């Protein structure tokens, strides 16, 4: 035993002393520093409270938004999503506050292209497709949009706009899809219907100008902000939904399948297509077979998601040979392919409208209609069609520019017969589901993609929709004629008035 034992008394003294020191510190209010404030904020926010901050915040995204989602852990509040939503798409800031019971969104997905950190992305539907592919009793069909073939290559290190049409089909076959169809085929089908509808309107003088309806972002925009102009909208479904409806009816019959057996996938340059395929009325095949729960298109993937699937499967686009699309929904013409570029729908529609009115091939001018091509915000052109007269058209892309045209129509100051609207700058090639090849999206990339779509058109043997034999076969076997009763039930739709869901800023 040592002299200095650690006794209970010493221990209690020690504790008592520590308590007294602690209590003293507390009473004195000593502390190193308060909690919080150890992080960072983007520089624009670090200014005195009285100063304005020009670019700030972010867009609101509904948790149930079918098209886009956001990972908050990646968001840095740079404000770029708001910037594009307000100044390019003209949705944010164009409604009064307070909001009603909807977070106004047209699902165009431009914010996914502008977001520098990739916080906002398309809603990921890859798992649903993988599940269908692994299901032995599902016949999985996939359609690819015109704009995908000039953008997918960028995800595999190819220059912007590289044409990978054939390689893409091979890749999809390797990935396990049972049939690969071309949305350009149904673009031709859309043109057959829409050109017929245009001629009908021009001759009757009703509901002019005729508005295109193949861009679901634009359609929802019009339902929100210009619901009063709804009669002007073409009743034609978009090519995606037409192909979906035909795949589960006509194709199913041809193959001896039931609509329930077919799982229909679409690869689109677009996030609004994810919203469109979920619209309640997009179940024509289901209604026809007595099971309205069946969707015409089950899942929409973006170009980016397709690239993810291919990479996950170890499929390198660069090492693949070309393959042709599958019959009976695989033939396309140049007119169908240029749907992916701003002005393309107009050019394709007028080529066929010319033929349907005159029974003559359209003149060379309409096979390269420069007035409706290019990246000018609003393009105007006119053409004289024998027996119809002067047809005046306008083309808008990026909905902020569209407002100028729409306001003219609303105030009866327009003399156009046909107006094409695309939500995304450049048209579908600049869609919200396309590869993020430049950030923010640049006109250089858009131009490269557009140039190659026109190249595909220019080198195509068939340049107009009425020349598409597989489309004509469909009419011959099933639909009989454009705008027939059967065609109306399968290929045409109606729209919703959403103007009550927001207070539009006047």
């Amino acid at each position, binding site marked *: 035993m040592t002299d200095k034992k650690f006794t209970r008394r010493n221990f209690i003294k020690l504790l008592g002393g520590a308590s007294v020191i602690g209590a003293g510190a507390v009473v004195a209010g000593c*502390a190193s520093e308060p909690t919080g404030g150890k992080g960072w904020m983007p520089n624009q*926010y670090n200014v005195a*409270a009285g100063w304005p901050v020009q670019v700030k*915040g972010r867009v609101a995204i509904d948790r149930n938004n079918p098209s886009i989602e956001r990972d908050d852990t990646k968001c840095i509040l740079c404000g770029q999503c708001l910037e594009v939503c307000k100044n390019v798409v003209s949705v944010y800031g164009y409604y009064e506050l307070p909001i009603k019971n909807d977070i106004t969104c047209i699902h165009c997905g431009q914010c996914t292209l502008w977001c520098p950190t990739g916080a906002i992305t398309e809603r990921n539907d890859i798992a649903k497709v993988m599940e269908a592919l692994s299901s032995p009793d599902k016949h999985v069909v996939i359609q690819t949009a015109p704009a995908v073939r000039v953008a997918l290559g960028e995800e595999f290190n190819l220059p912007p706009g590289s044409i990978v049409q054939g390689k893409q089909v091979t890749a999809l076959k390797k990935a396990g899809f049972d049939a690969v169809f071309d949305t350009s085929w149904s673009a031709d089908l859309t043109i057959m219907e829409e050109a017929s509808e245009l001629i009908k309107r021009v001759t009757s003088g009703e509901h002019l100008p005729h508005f295109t309806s193949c861009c679901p972002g634009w359609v929802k925009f019009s339902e929100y902000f210009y619901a009063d102009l709804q009669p002007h909208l073409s009743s034609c479904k978009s090519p995606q939904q037409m192909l979906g409806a035909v795949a589960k009816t006509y194709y199913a019959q041809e193959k001896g399948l039931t609509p329930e057996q077919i799982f229909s996938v679409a690869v689109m340059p677009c996030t609004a297509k994810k919203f469109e395929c979920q619209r309640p009325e997009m179940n024509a095949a289901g209604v026809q077979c007595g099971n309205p729960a069946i969707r015409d298109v089950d899942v929409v993937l973006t170009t980016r998601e397709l690239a993810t699937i291919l990479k996950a499967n170890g499929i390198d686009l660069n090492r693949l040979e070309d393959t042709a699309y599958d019959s009976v929904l695989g033939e396309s013409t140049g007119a169908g392919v240029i749907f992916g570029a701003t002005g393309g729908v107009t050019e394709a529609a007028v080529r066929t409208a010319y033929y349907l009115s005159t029974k003559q091939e359209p003149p060379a001018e309409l096979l390269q209609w420069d007035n409706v091509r290019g990246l000018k915000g609003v393009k105007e052109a006119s053409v004289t069609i024998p027996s119809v007269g002067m047809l005046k058209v306008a083309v808008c892309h990026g909905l902020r520019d569209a407002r100028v045209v729409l306001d003219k129509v609303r105030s009866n100051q327009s003399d156009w017969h046909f107006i094409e609207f695309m939500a995304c700058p450049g048209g579908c090639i600049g869609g919200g589901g396309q590869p993020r090849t430049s950030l923010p999206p640049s006109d250089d990339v858009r131009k490269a993609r557009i140039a190659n779509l026109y190249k595909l058109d220019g080198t195509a043997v068939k340049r107009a929709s009425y020349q598409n034999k597989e489309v004509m076969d469909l009419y011959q076997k099933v639909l009989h004629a454009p705008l027939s009763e059967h065609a109306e039930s399968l290929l045409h739709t109606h729209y919703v008035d959403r103007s009550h869901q927001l207070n539009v800023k006047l």
Partner: protein
Amino acid sequence: MSKGVLVDITKCIGCGSCTVACKMWNKLEYDNKVPSIGEDATLNDKNWTVVVQSSLNNAKGESVWRFAKQQCMHCVDPACASACFSRALQKNADGAVVYYPDLCVGCRYCMIACPFDVPKYEWSKAAPQITKCQMCSSRIAKGEAPACVAVCPTGVMKFADRQELINEAHLMLKRDDRYMKTVYGEHEVGGTCWLYVSDVPFDQLGFKSKLGSVPLPSYTHSFLKNVPVIALGWGVLLTGMSFYARRRNEIAKAKQAKRNGTDGNQQGEDDDFDEED
């Protein structure tokens, strides 16, 4: 001059910028299980501010969505700071009620005391702290607005002197009859630095009504103010009595020893503590 923030519920679109700003500035983790935006948004140790979405009917009977930002209300006379005996919660002159983790003993009295149920505890940590919004005290010390206020794209929040904001809020209520005729936070529990105006009743947004206008600390202050005096006085009294008793014993022992003729100082001081049982 106490600062404050005026929140206009009618301008909120539910983007959640404020919640992200809070996480960024305070280096807070994201909680995978507890969202900070939406119907299920809940304040917890990681979520210092949340935006709660509610579906309700407005005065016209229309079904509407409203978003209520929740965070510490920064009471003018905070119950949490009053309940904290270790001074871990302190009220700054600029209005912020701030938390000093070094002083906290983890008793969680503040959680019981807070009428708004704001302070949260880091239950999952080995050395837990209390957590809550600090009103970005380090930012407002530099004249900057709190992070959440700075990032709001629609101008839901305004940061200024509290009294100015109250005046402005009343002007808004006068000018626009859509607003409820109360400024939430002006009088609740004696007033809070965060003030709210809304076009739908506050209780439908999850705000506590019927809190009264009396600061909670005032209920306890009348008797709790005597605690230090009583505690110290009691200590002094007992110490004095102890010395008195010991001295009497010693004197008595000395007298006894004198009578017995022996030395009464044989036992060591530590006898009672020397051996273990």
